[in-house]
């Protein structure tokens, strides 16, 4: 096996050095009744070339755009977004000094990771309009759960409010994380314009935090500033969640609208969709809450000769020091994805990211307008970014299925989560869709 360097002679030399007769003797500590005599039932090992072929075949039927043998047109967003990723990023990820390193526990040997993550934290904090970002969490959903837990720690209150327009999967994950601690979750309903109904908030005094997603699950931009004001008055922590951070290159960012914490998914910043993971849990807060943050933090410092350098810092929040009193149990995070996001943000730059966000906005507006003109209803009038809901006529399911057979995915049906929204579909358009794609799509759904 090419991954194993030992020759028969090496093994003999080493066994002799440890004073044993056989490899089996190395395992004498395993009691007979814990060991096993059978061999696990696994396929015969494959050569590199067989593996390559097998994986190509397995991946071959995946419905993706731009796949030469099997091209699809997928209008799905809902937490995973199709964006162009510069070749530079995959090329740089081939730098295995980054990929094959561990968490930078030994800073003198890990300045590459550390500076890159410090830069990621900086760009993230700037994008979200907050003071401090961590080095990443697993994904958007667990980032939200961590934010809510953090709010309960800071306020010592055991109730949180969650918008019904937060991604349904995120709401499920929040329940999983919060249920054992006995934290009460209040669901906020929605208004007919497609945004969260926050009217009940005023009467809730014992809230640790309020979490609202913007752009929300239906793609609508929420009135964050107003919620921020309400929270400021009531001493409730305002958590802004997102699944599409690119929107903040065009719209006001969470921090400017009163968010104490902003968290969510960073996949759209240069990370492939990968069937849903790995993604990137982004997390930022105001500086006064820094010591309550979950996850790793990279900080700037100096070496013995006064040169700039970076280290993991404020570790006393973390599990390896604080154990059960830690701010989170997270250890391994999503560092390489954070690196990809940093490379992506650096590639776009301030000028490019505005332009790209505008392009997404304009494209979505174009398709929305075209569908509206074709006679379909746009039920929620609030402004959106690159996703929106369309109400198709009853019986559209047959059209949807016909389109699937023609390799077109006409968005995501919403009724599994919102049974009242029959024939409502969530559609997403990014810079990857050309005008002619969209025209062709409108033609397909109307024919």
């Amino acid at each position, binding site marked *: 096996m090419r991954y194993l360097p030992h020759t028969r002679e090496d093994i003999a030399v080493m066994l002799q050095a440890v004073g044993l007769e056989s490899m089996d003797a190395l395992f004498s*500590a395993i009691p007979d009744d814990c060991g096993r005599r059978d061999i696990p039932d696994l396929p015969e090992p494959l050569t590199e070339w067989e593996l390559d072929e097998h994986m190509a075949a397995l991946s071959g039927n995946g419905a993706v755009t731009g796949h030469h043998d099997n091209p699809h047109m997928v209008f799905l967003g809902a937490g995973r977004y199709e964006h162009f990723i510069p070749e530079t990023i995959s090329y740089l990820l081939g730098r295995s000094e980054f990929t094959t390193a561990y968490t930078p526990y030994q800073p003198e040997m890990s300045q590459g990771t550390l500076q890159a993550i410090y830069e990621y934290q900086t760009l993230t904090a700037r994008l979200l309009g907050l003071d401090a970002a961590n080095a990443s969490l697993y994904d958007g959903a667990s980032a939200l759960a961590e934010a809510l837990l953090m709010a309960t720690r800071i306020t010592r209150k055991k109730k949180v409010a969650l918008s019904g327009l937060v991604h349904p999967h995120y709401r499920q994950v929040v329940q999983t994380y919060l249920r054992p601690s006995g934290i009460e979750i209040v669901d906020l309903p929605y208004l007919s314009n497609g945004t969260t109904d926050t009217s009940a908030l005023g009467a809730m005094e014992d809230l640790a935090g309020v979490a609202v997603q913007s752009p929300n699950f239906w793609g609508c931009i929420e009135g964050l500033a107003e919620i921020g004001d309400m929270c400021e008055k009531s001493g409730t922590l305002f958590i802004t969640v997102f699944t599409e951070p690119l929107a903040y290159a065009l719209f006001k960012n969470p921090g400017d609208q009163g968010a104490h914490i902003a968290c969510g998914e960073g996949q759209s910043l240069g990370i492939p969709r990968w069937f849903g993971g790995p993604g990137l849990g982004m997390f930022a807060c105001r500086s006064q809450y820094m010591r309550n943050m979950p996850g790793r933090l990279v900080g700037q410092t100096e070496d013995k000769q006064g040169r700039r350098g970076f280290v993991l810092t404020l570790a006393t929040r973390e599990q390896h020091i604080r154990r059960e009193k830690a701010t989170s149990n997270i250890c391994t995070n999503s560092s390489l994805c954070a690196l990809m996001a940093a490379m992506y943000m650096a590639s776009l730059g301030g000028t490019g990211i505005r332009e790209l966000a505008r392009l997404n906005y304009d494209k979505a507006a174009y398709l929305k307008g075209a569908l509206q003109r074709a006679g379909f209803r746009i039920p929620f009038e609030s*402004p959106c970014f690159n996703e929106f809901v369309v109400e198709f006529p009853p019986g559209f399911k047959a059209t949807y299925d016909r389109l699937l057979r023609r390799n077109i995915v006409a968005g995501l049906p919403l009724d599994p989560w919102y049974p009242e929204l029959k024939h409502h579909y969530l559609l997403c358009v990014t810079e990857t869709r050309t005008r002619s794609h969209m025209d062709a799509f409108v033609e397909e759904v109307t024919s």
Partner: protein
Amino acid sequence: MSKPLAPTGLNMNEPLLWEMDKPGRTAFSMPRHDVPSAPLHDDLAGDGPDFPDLNEMGVIRHYTRLSQWNFGVDTGMYPLGSCTMKYNPKINEKVSRLKGFAALHPMLPALMTQGALRLMAELERFLAEITAMDAVSLQPAAGAQGELAGMLLIHAYLKSLGVKRSKIIIPDTAHGTNPASAALCGYRPVRVTSGEKGILTPHAVSEVMDEDTAGIMITNPNTLGLFEENIKEIARIVHGKGGQVYCDGANMNAVMGMVHMGNSGVDVLHLNLHKTFSAPHGGGGPGAGPVCVANHLAPFLPVPRIVVKDGVYHLSEAFPQSVGRLHSFLGNFGVMIKAYAYILSMGAEGLKKASQLAVLNANYLKEKLKTVLHLPYDRPCMHECVFSDKFQRDQKITTLDMAKRLMDFGFHPPTIYFPLVVDGAIMIEPTETESLEEIDRFVEAFRIVTREASESPDLLRGSPKRCRVARLDETLAARRPCLMG
């Protein structure tokens, strides 16, 4: 050592990204603006982020130079204990980036993702086979989330029996994530001390196990690199009082396909695909921490689960007893691909061989170093061995000093100051992919370092000398936190 592995080389200075900003540059090929500009309300529009503008080569050089300040498994031996820094096969990287995987949307109709679902279903089965457990969920995003999943499973299972308990037993050798994960699930950790041999005794467990204790979290092989020989008896005690046994399987690299976890009394176990199954650690992640369970816990596994009907794979949430969802989607599929590719490349015999060689390497290294480093538990070890700085204390040389000096020889230091039960711990895990010659070089370097400790201790205190930076001031970083520029 005739030739140190780390001579001083050409090493470029590189500023922070925003120190190179020149507005108007770009490294992005902007798609055509082929639609009209839509109106945008002024109230909504923001200023956009203050990002630096760079061009494409600027970005490439920046990250290429940063990468040169880093050390990875591909650079050299990285014997970080408890982290299993084995070689990360390159073919696995390639196949994980195949377009049909990398560009796949997780909410597509199942018929359009059959290959990916099949991969996951097969990987679940492979992991069940390797551990001899009954059912698997691949959803947890890393080891700690696997631990949380395990705690939630135990909580849900006990609840289904009408039982509510408040404590969990955790040995003093446990990784910090164990108590943190248990606490997230509302359990209060009760500490047990490992016995003289570095493993838990049934007696110690029976003293604390009671009817208010949900079970035990036991790491096997443990963080001292020792097999918990009494696991079966301990499980009997825990089960006898109505508790469940959680095994932290982060150290599975020592025993792939060699231990029958089910027969050992384990009810639930997590694996770290980013350690044992060769997925790279990415400088901190992403990982994947699947949980493997015995049949009685299977109904509680996270949803969605993969089910097969008439030869077609589907995702199903129809498991009313499930602990719920843990991840935004299905877990870290990109990492699963690499583990799957690794298992297919190794086969059952290959995995067993890998474990054997990992254990052989650790024992060999232990024999070679124990004359110069204090070995608190002088017993045959599994995949790693734990020394301490006791012999060097007379010279006032610490584990940290030796770790830093090792860098000058071109080796990544071992894990230090963990496990907590060994004062000044030096935890070395060579893994099976290091050759005899490489281990000999490491041993020799470490021997030189211990000699220097008595002959020229200041050399150690002033190390590292050959890295990009000298020793960094961590106290300063924590006292005046500067987390963004």
